[in-house]
């Protein structure tokens, strides 16, 4: 199992290639959408690169739960409801939902996901 720093370096390299950003911009605290400018299609690209770099399989919706965020069952008035938050927790155990829970607006979600979340996600896949 590679160390956390080794995983971070590979994640950084995947994000530099996928998003065309400078290496220095890819810090653990940088948000994927707000700071690094990732768009929805970039997440598909990032999935390809992470799968290749780490030899893992990333099922659709696991890294970016677009199905939960667009579901009438889990979203009420533009906010993720209690059932939705539970679904996100189950789907994304690597993701710290604390900040998002304070204002669980769907629009806020993309801005919550950080580079460190990507690293934790890969760690969880490699450990599985």
């Amino acid at each position, binding site marked *: 199992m590679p160390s956390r720093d080794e995983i971070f370096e590979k994640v950084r390299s995947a994000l530099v*290639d996928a998003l065309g950003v400078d290496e220095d911009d890819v810090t653990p605290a940088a948000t994927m959408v707000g700071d690094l400018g990732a768009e929805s*299609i*970039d997440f598909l690209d990032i999935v390809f690169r992470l799968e290749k770099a780490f030899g893992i399989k990333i099922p659709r919706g696991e890294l970016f739960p677009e199905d939960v965020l667009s579901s009438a069952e889990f979203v009420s008035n533009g906010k993720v409801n209690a059932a939705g938050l539970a679904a996100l927790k189950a789907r994304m155990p690597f993701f710290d939902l604390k900040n998002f829970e304070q204002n669980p607006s769907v629009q806020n979600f993309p801005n919550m996901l950080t580079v460190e979340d990507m690293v934790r996600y890969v760690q969880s896949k490699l450990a599985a």
Partner: protein
Amino acid sequence: MRWFWIDRFDEFVRGRHAVAVKNVSLAEEHMHDHFPGAALMPNSLVVEGMAQTAGLLVADAIDYNRRVVLAKVAAAEFHFDAVPGDTLRFRAEILDLKPGGSFTRVSSTVEDRLQGEAELFFAHLEPGEGVPKLFEPEELLRWLDQMHIYDVGRDQAGNPLPRPDW
């Protein structure tokens, strides 16, 4: 003017690689103003030819079951401009193919000179994912015939590709 940026395929190996040619001509309308007296093919249209080469290779590999859309030009580099009289030869190979998308690499050469290289990323969309139907089956088949895919196409064992009966 129709949006055809390749003239025909010379090689087509299902799921693996394809070679298509594009003859650059002064008769093409966009050349007249780009630029007067010094016509050249914009590299954005070279990318389109690359994408048509790689996109058809990918679409064939997934039996035309999804809408193959150029989602991202992951990298592109050009070394000189293509001008009227040049024959561009696009060689596309599939680097990675999954249900939801594919990664391809395409080069463009004029004779033995490397004109450009690109990495193209395609999304494979299902109906309802925001992209209208791209082709009627007979219209698509007419294009594939025009591209000579079923004349030169082979599967990976070297057998001719059967022409679909859409």
